[in-house]
């Protein structure tokens, strides 16, 4: 066997390795992970009426860490997956000054109420008539969760379901900051 074909014997299979490596690299990136233009900017104020009839307004929440979660009862499975985590985080941090608001996104009243009952949410949840708040926040799909710091700026946006660890990390970080 000639030297040339010995080289070829290795070169042929090895030629595809860089392509495979590049594709594997693709797992580390998310093409839809386009940074939100809202990051670092003041969060848009809103005033909604919660399902239980109480008003929810962002203006009155300055100086506190706010988590705004957009969800829908038809958003299956992601919204169902994250719902227990949200409630757990709320219970864990509400005494330390956390405010959590659920905004119900393009939904019907009855299934939305059933969703809340199913997960026993105790933090305020409000429908978003005309999707005005969702549009202000640039919600692309549900679930999306926005973390707002004590100065009222959007600091982090999560697209897709949140987990216990992520909620803990973000909330602890923002709570630790000075107002």
């Amino acid at each position: 066997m000639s030297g040339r074909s010995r080289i070829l014997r290795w070169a042929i299979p090895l030629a595809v390795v860089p392509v495979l490596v590049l594709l594997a690299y693709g797992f580390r990136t998310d093409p839809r992970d386009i940074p939100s233009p809202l990051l670092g900017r003041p969060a848009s104020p809103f005033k909604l009426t919660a399902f239980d009839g109480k008003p929810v307004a962002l203006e009155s929440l300055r100086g506190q860490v706010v988590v705004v979660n957009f969800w829908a009862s038809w958003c299956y499975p992601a919204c169902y997956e994250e719902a227990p985590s949200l409630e757990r985080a709320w219970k864990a941090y509400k005494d330390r000054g956390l405010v959590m608001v659920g905004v119900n996104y393009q939904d019907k009243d009855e299934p939305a109420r059933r969703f809340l009952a199913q997960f026993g949410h105790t933090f305020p949840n409000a429908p978003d008539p005309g999707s005005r708040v969702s549009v202000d926040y640039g919600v692309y799909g549900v679930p999306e969760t926005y973390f707002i710091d004590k100065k009222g700026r959007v600091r982090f946006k999560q697209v897709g379901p949140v987990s216990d660890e992520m909620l803990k990390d973000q909330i602890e970080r923002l709570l630790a900051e000075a107002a």
Partner: protein
Amino acid sequence: MTPEVGYAATVAALILAVYGSGAAALSAVKGRADLRRSSERAAVGVWLLVMTCMALLIYAFLTFDFSVRYVAGNTNLGTPFYYRITAVWGALEGSIILWAFMLSIYTLIVMARYRRTQPQLYPWVLAVMLGISAFFLLVMAIPAPPFERLSPIPADGRGLNPLLEDSGMITHPVALYLGFTGFTVPFAFAMAALIIGRTGDEWITITRRWTIVAWYFLSLGLLIGGWWSYHVLGWGGYWAWDPVENAAFMPWLTGTAFLHSVMIQERRRMLKLWNLTLIILTFSLTLFGTFLTRSGIIGSVHAFSQGSVGQFFLGFLALIVLGAFSLLAWRLERLHAQGELDSIVSRESAFLLNNLFLVAAAFTVFFGTVFPLLSEAVKGQKVSVGAAFFNLVNIPIFLALIFLMGVGPLIAWRRASAENLRRNFLTPVAIGIAAAAVCRVAGVANALVLLCLALVVFVAATIALDFARAARARRRTGDGWLDATWGLALRQNRRYGGFVVHLGILVVALGVAGSQAWSTQTEATLNRGESMELAGYTIRFDGLQGVEESNHAKVVGTFTVSDRKGPYTVLTPAKKFYPQEQTPIAAVDYRLGFMEDLYLVLGEFARDGSHATIKIQVNRMVSWLWIGGFLLTLGAALAIVPEPRRTPAVARAGQTAAA
């Protein structure tokens, strides 16, 4: 119950496929017929089990069994029953079942046809095909289980992606997957040939028709995809160089190259290494396509991320590519060409050029598709590659390919004489130039369109000339007209089937050129009763109407259209509102015509129906794509039918002549 039974069937099928693959390989090594028979029974078992999975899933959809996560995710109580059936392959999990199911059918056909005639290749073919089936069953068992149980059971499901509620979605995935899986057969034969060292032309002769079948279905899948994009997505186009489209287009390009280059190997015993490389590439690209669309590594309108499926596909892709190319490298010394290229002016070199261009096109598409990834890896910048890049690099390549389409079939093998060139090409070249000149005089100003037209007419003329000559020769030997034409086409069905396919491609090429050059569009906001004009059409907005459908609400606009001759039609484009979708979905309305389509998309509107924004497109020559697709179907069918045996054909010809 269904989830458990389905999952059990999946796992059983997986075990059988792994066992069957191993048993088939072992039977080949040890020469044990009992093992081979056992592996065949395993293959039948796989088929039965996958069919069971398929049936179970269809049943779960039909009965709204929301205890199956996949059913809950892709249907709801309002989904009409026919879309509940097609919803089976509406998302990843089900489409993997469809894939496995088709593969198991192909495996059975291969088994039935070759178990006696190809005793040496066949066990390895079976081993490879069952091995590939095993991978898809593994995907069904672990990363994308279609029968995953959902608890608690929701009262209603999420519903099918509204864009998939269309008749095109019934056929498009089926055709596409028949194409994708179809390439498994030539790939498996190529691997078997490499393993046993019979690297001659045998595997190519056996799989020729299989390749045409796979190629045909892939072409059909692409065309139906274009049709779906055209009449559902509402942007007025049929091809956007989206990664998912590219994913299906790349194997088509290399598959087309393969279809052509095998002819040189059959004839001249050249290009053995090349042909093996092409089939490995083609098959790998079918996997790559699925990887790309399912891994979520590249942004696309279709793609959606699905957990670890991408990793599984990448792993398998690596296994296939590295394995196949290592096998190829191992058998390298058996792959030397026995023939040589005699002259640059010959059919061999025309085919080689054709291959070069097709592979170059595949490479540019590949490069453009993964470039965002490359850019992010190297420069850390997010970019997207748009249609401009793909058009720029591919238009010259495709024009060159059309030219070669005219040259290849008629130029002489080995070395074309001046006489051969003059006899075959002088008239067609003259006709092509004349046609372009006539069109120029008639007012066609676009240089690219004129060039495309000249090439298309040139190729069509070569085909017509060749056919007329052959028919005339048969007439001279005493055949009747019908026999000299239709009989000729049937007798040399591969050649003339190929020609009809070429004609189909030419018609598609004209459609692409015409629609790109001459389509026109405008957008306007009309008050009720107000009219506007575009390209000779007058469109009047008559009002809006709300309609409640089983699973969505829609707002339908009524537009009365008249053309220069008077009243033409009433079009009712709509906007559909699905509760589970964030954005409304446009339902376009259109009138298709031979030379132009009128195409209306409803935009924003006032709730009281007083005014509405409408996008009006006059899309020229788009119908040619579908007509070309139909021709392509005819040609492929002609090329696929088994060549009639010599004797009966002659006998039949005699009868016809006598009658």
